[in-house]
């Protein structure tokens, strides 16, 4: 019998890797309080500790780490957006993702598969040309490809789905995927190692604002003073902002997704079609993940509906007809904080020392590293907004300077 089996099988004393220290009482005061323990909140905490030596930080999470949209998205990483502001920002994120496993010494299963977006109309082909050129200008690897090239890339794809034949594709070589919950855990582990406190099951009940500044946060476990606070709560951004006394240009819609049982590998790239409102990828375990457009009306609820599943499956089968026999394994939804221009809101809020990491709608996961890094830089500097995220400030709506990413975002993630 192997010695290890005897040794650890008969003893209650065996080596345990502790990634997160056990929970402790809240301290009366922190320099920075981050509300929301998803990928974004944890990334901000990590970069604050790593680059700015700010470790008197608490991350407050009302449930468990990464239990919100961090682990509900379809884990698409890409930077083939339309605007120069968007492309610059998301490209930096892709670069950080590429090195994340090494940085954490923790495998986030980053896998560069490339992303293929399909055009079914002339208008989409034109927008693809523009996106390809903007991407190349900023060093991205994005090209227009024709039907023959698409066929070679994804032989199993149906190029003539019903009334919408595929005309061309936008082939984004930098497109990738990663294990989304591992990204959150990696940030949590490394942040905790540097002294950041992560408090799960800690719900923020009220924000104490005095003279235009946030001074304390009331939670179900007591009140804590704070030097400043950041909200990173995705679908519930408006609810928290209301407690701080202001409104946001955000509407919360559910987004539903689903996954089949594992099948043998047939699909390497991530494939999406905004005309069919469907994007498809095969995970490293062989499951086929389907995501689609948001629900047709706002709701703070993660329930699934038959109508959305029906339309998503119909589109998925148009793209890959042989999947008609595949069995669904799971379905789920997340509440997404949609902005009018499909770009995020980062930076200052009407409260002086209260910062926003919101409006991430259906595009938040791919921005986790760069958002964390730039938001940490801003928090550390006492509110100076880094150049990279200047275009995404809340003020852009009042100034009519929106960053329109609708075409490059809607149902193509």
């Amino acid at each position, binding site marked *: 019998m192997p010695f290890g089996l005897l040794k650890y099988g008969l003893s209650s004393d065996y080596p345990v890797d502790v990634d997160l220290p056990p929970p402790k009482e809240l301290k009366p005061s922190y320099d920075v309080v981050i509300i929301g323990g998803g990928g974004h909140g944890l990334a901000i905490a990590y970069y604050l500790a790593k680059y700015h030596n700010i470790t008197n930080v608490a991350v407050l999470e009302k449930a468990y780490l990464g239990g919100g949209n961090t682990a509900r998205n379809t884990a698409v990483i890409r930077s083939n957006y339309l605007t120069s502001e968007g492309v610059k920002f998301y490209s930096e994120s892709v670069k950080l993702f590429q090195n994340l496993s090494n940085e954490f010494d923790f495998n986030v299963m980053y896998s560069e598969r490339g992303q293929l977006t399909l055009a079914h109309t002339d208008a989409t082909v034109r927008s693809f040309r523009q996106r390809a050129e903007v991407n190349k200008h900023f060093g991205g690897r994005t090209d227009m490809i024709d039907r023959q090239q698409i066929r070679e890339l994804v032989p199993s794809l149906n190029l003539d789905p019903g009334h919408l034949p595929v005309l061309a594709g936008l082939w984004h070589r930098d497109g990738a995927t990663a294990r989304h919950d591992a990204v959150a855990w990696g940030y949590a582990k490394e942040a905790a190692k540097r002294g950041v406190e992560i408090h799960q099951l800690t719900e923020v009940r009220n924000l104490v604002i005095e003279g235009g500044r946030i001074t304390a946060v009331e939670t179900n476990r007591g009140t804590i003073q704070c030097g400043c606070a950041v909200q990173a709560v995705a679908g519930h951004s408006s*609810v928290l902002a*209301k407690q701080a006394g202001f409104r946001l240009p*955000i509407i919360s819609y559910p987004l539903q997704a689903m996954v089949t049982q594992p099948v043998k590998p047939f699909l390497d790239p991530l494939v999406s079609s905004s005309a069919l409102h469907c994007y498809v990828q095969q995970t490293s375990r062989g499951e086929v993940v389907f995501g689609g457009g948001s629900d*047709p009306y706002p709701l*703070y609820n993660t329930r699934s509906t*038959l109508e959305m599943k029906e339309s998503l499956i119909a589109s998925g089968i148009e793209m890959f007809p042989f999947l008609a026999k595949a069995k669904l394994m799971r379905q789920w939804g997340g509440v997404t904080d949609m902005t009018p221009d499909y770009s995020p809101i980062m930076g200052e809020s009407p409260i002086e020392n209260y910062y926003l990491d919101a409006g991430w709608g259906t595009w938040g996961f791919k921005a986790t590293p760069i958002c964390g890094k730039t938001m940490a830089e801003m928090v550390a500097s006492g509110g100076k907004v880094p150049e990279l995220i200047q275009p995404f400030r809340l003020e852009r*709506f009042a100034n009519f300077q929106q960053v329109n990413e609708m075409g490059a975002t809607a149902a193509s993630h």
Partner: protein
Amino acid sequence: MKIMNCPLNGPRNISEFIHGGELKPMPNPTTCSDREWADYVFYSDNTAGVITEWWMHVASSYWFLAERHTVTDEILRTFDPQEIFQERIEFAVEEKRS
């Protein structure tokens, strides 16, 4: 299929309707500031709870109001806009002739 009760057409499948956004007072576009207009156009209460919102029955192009709970998705009441709007709202901007 979720059912919505249209004040004009009775109970119908919710897929026959489109959502038109929360009911909010419109500032006068000719006199309000840019900031007020941006607030009206882009910002939202996005309330988690009971709200009053616009809906349209697509087949009959009929706009009406609904009270709905945005957490439970329960439709509490639907009613004709005449309950709130007694007179027509004019959107046309008076042109200045030089």
